[in-house]
């Protein structure tokens, strides 16, 4: 077999590709309107995650901390959550949803946030905030389990679990986008609009591409409402194109409300977008319109301009969230490129059963490695000591120094992409995303040819 899947062969992490579960829950929480999460743990678990997300989106948003100090770590810190809920609700009168997000410290000391929420509902909420609609929910995201990817998955499921209700059939579909960018949400909604399909989108983070307004009053926040979350229980079908970032919620809706679901594939590239549209059409009975045929054609036209002349046989390494990395690898193969190394996610044992990975194993005709529980050293060590040669890297900004130090061009994709302007605005999904990705990759290679004076004259007559 040419394509090998292996677990990282070291025990520690040198330059992590991922952060831990609470970050994923926090990213999910900012997609909900009138929601401010409280992260139960040390202050750094919030302060740095807010910094990270704000570096990526170049926007601010609110997440609170229960500010656990020494006494709390020793004697239990539930009183800190009680105070946090009261203070938060008192000062933010618009807030309706408050997830209590656990961390490693508060999971280790065993703080019972579920029990506390019942107590608060019967006490504080009933007494002090009786005239307010307030929903508290626990989200357990111990940092020593999974990664930010599973934290996101767990949080989406818990939000859905908390709110989804069986009501009159809405005729709508649920679209759980997964951990994507505002630009991706915009592209997905565009596809739905062209298909004339009514959907509940989890989560509406398109609004994080927000303006400075003359009155100085613009605020960035997610736009998914409680009503949206409630309506997920009455949908006709759930689409969770990112298997590991929303799959759990799709399963829950299927089990609890008998709503059928389609999990995957990540709609990166022409082929995967085609698959999503076909399934959408089957489920809703709506035909795929000519407008999308035309859009698809524009994308294929753009890709044809660059694919077999410039991208073919280019060796690429890809890292990031597993759905993104796999989707990119599939698209690269359609572009005639040769993904050499995929660095996937966390220690999730089910990656090896992913049908997309099985397909890679069955069909790739050159040596390709897929590493799970990977870190950046898995890439750098191969470049530095093991003779790996690459033409291109696809991944997020935390890997920037590999690109810089080993002189390999890199296209920023995924989260976070703080070292390039505006990346969050562009989609990687859909036909628009396919065009953008192919052209970004081509331009990165062109720039590299010029910087290295490597057949730079080629572009004279393109």
């Amino acid at each position: 077999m040419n394509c090998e899947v292996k677990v990282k062969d070291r025990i520690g992490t040198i330059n992590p590709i991922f952060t831990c579960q609470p970050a994923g829950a926090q990213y999910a929480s900012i997609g909900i309107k009138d929601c401010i999460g409280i992260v139960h743990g040390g202050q750094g678990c919030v302060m740095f995650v807010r910094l990270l997300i704000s570096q990526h989106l170049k926007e601010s948003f609110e997440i609170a901390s229960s500010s656990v100090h020494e006494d709390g770590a020793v004697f239990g810190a539930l009183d800190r959550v009680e105070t946090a809920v009261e203070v938060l609700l008192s000062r933010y009168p618009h807030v309706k949803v408050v997830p209590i997000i656990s961390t490693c410290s508060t999971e280790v000391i065993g703080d019972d946030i579920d029990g506390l929420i019942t107590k608060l509902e019967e006490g504080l909420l009933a007494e002090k905030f009786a005239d307010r609609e307030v929903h508290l929910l626990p989200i357990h995201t111990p940092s020593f389990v999974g990664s930010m990817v599973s934290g996101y998955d767990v949080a989406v499921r818990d939000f859905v679990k908390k709110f989804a209700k069986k009501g009159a059939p809405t005729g709508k579909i649920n679209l759980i986008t997964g951990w994507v960018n505002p630009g991706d949400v915009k592209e997905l909604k565009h596809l739905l609009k062209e298909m004339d399909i009514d959907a509940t989108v989890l989560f509406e983070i398109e609004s994080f591409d927000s303006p400075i307004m003359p009155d100085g009053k613009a605020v960035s926040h997610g736009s998914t409402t409680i009503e949206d979350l409630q309506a997920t229980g009455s949908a006709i079908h759930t689409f969770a194109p990112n298997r590991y970032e929303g799959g759990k919620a799709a399963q829950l809706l299927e089990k609890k409300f008998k709503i059928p679901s389609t999990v995957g594939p990540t709609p990166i590239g022409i082929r995967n977008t085609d698959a999503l549209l076909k399934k959408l059409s089957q489920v809703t009975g709506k035909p795929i319109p000519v407008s999308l045929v035309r859009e698809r054609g524009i994308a294929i036209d753009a890709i044809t301009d660059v694919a077999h002349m410039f991208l073919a046989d280019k060796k690429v390494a890809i890292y990031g969230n597993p759905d993104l990395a796999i989707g990119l690898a599939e698209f690269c193969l359609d572009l005639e490129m040769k993904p050499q190394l995929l660095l996937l996610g966390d220690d999730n044992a089910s990656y090896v059963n992913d049908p997309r990975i099985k397909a890679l194993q069955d069909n790739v005709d050159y040596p390709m490695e897929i590493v799970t529980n990977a870190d950046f050293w898995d890439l750098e060590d191969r470049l530095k000591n093991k003779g790996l040669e690459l033409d291109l890297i696809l991944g997020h900004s935390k890997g920037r120094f590999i690109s810089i130090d080993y002189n390999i061009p890199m296209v920023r994709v995924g989260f976070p992409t703080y070292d390039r302007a505006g990346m969050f605005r562009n989609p990687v999904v859909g036909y628009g995303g396919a065009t953008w990705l192919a052209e970004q990759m081509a331009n990165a290679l062109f720039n590299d040819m010029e910087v290295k004076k490597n057949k730079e004259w080629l572009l004279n007559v393109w």
Partner: protein
Amino acid sequence: MPYHEFEVSKCIPERKMHAVVKGPGEDLTHALPKGYLNTIPGTISERGCAYCGAKHVIGTPMKDVIHLSHGPVGCTYDTWQTKRYISDNNNFQLKYTFASDVKEKHIVFGAEKLLKQNILEAFDAFPDIKRMTIYQTCATALIGDDMSAIAEEVMAERPEVDIFVCNSPGFGGPSQSGGHHKINIAWLNQKVGTVEPDITSDYVINYVGEYNIQGDQEVMLDFFRRMGIQVLSTFTGNSTYDSLRSMHRAHLNVLECARSAEYLCDELRVRYGIPRLDIDGFGHKALGDSLRKIGLFFGIEDRAEAIIAEETARWKPELDWYKERLQGKKVCLWPGGSKLWHWAHAIQEEMGVKVVSVYTKFGHQGDMEKGVSRCGEGALAIDDPNELENQEAMLTLKPDVIFTGKRPGEVAKKMRVPYLNAHAYHNGPYKGFEGWVRFARDIYNAVYSPMHQLSAIDISKDDYETGKGFVTRRMLSDAGLPEEAKASPLTGYTGKFDPIPDLRQKTYPAFERRVAPAVAE
């Protein structure tokens, strides 16, 4: 000096003691905000944790070291690549970070074995690096791993390596400041006195509380070297691990950031009798006075004066050019800790701006004492600021620019207040005579950005001007200036994008030793 009660914090009365407004003729005896108390949960405070205070702020600027955090991967990932402390060894400390990657089974059964394997693996991956720091996190503190025992074990097996252990979990104290304290004392107890340095000058200092943000340390070292002073170590920016083991041989500790590193200086005085001299590298006058003080201590004032004269002649006219154009601009000076007093009076006097508010995220009352005393009348001083109070302050004070962190800067951006990064700087270094002009340049560029002017226009309502195809900063800044000032041949800062590479190439004259070096010093 009345305590200031924010409208948005009326429901948490204890916040009232955390902000004051400096009234006419008042001083510190009238009131002082409380400081360094436990955070009120749920306020959306801007504070970080004691782990980051130790590992991220103070430990990691050491440049030839494997910095390993013992815990789940998030603490390491989240703090990685969020600072601009550079080094002259190709930024190893910025590029590489290590996590022991504690998982659930380790929480249950202990993670000491995991830690040991990690240490060996990390050294094996980087065979040229022989020094390591290990940082505890919340999770490994709670399960009670004995990191020191593991470090000792490895050092016994591999005599060529040396390991420093820092027990500063995230929950250790109200803010990152708890971590500053812990790592100061841990370093002193474990490492100071374990290496004997070569003494090459009659004047030997440690430069303490300086983290080489965008090259600050290298700028300051240039002055010290021009004075013939040997800098034994810098705690910790751009410094080697072993140089910091030899701190006990300095004649003087020159202390920059007293908030993060005064503990170390005070203990070095107690244990080794080394005096502490507090300095400011920010501002022409403060920096000049600082170099003079150091010169005075060693009896080499003339060397200090020569530098001050040369640097002032070169950079003061450019600073004054900005001062003329920044006169009266209102500033919120909202840094983390020490910059509120390093900058408050210096920017008012030398750049003409008016500090309308200071805050500190992790400062103590001592920092507020210094900060408030260096502010003018009417300034609002806030301890442990939070999101809503900051917004209220910006709405009422209407600052022209705000100096704060990246994420709070995004809040300001939406409120149409330009922001400069007070922690990492926009285009630093800001220390040194030239650096101070760079700071003024960055403020000027923020305040007079044509885009900022455009952002105020509501095209649906305003009758706005359309006659111009462009507006320059100069057209905005010079509109109200006297003709004489407008005619200035200067155009602002004339230095390079990055002044640091030249400093790294520089050679220094050898000064004759006053005292013959002892044979076995």
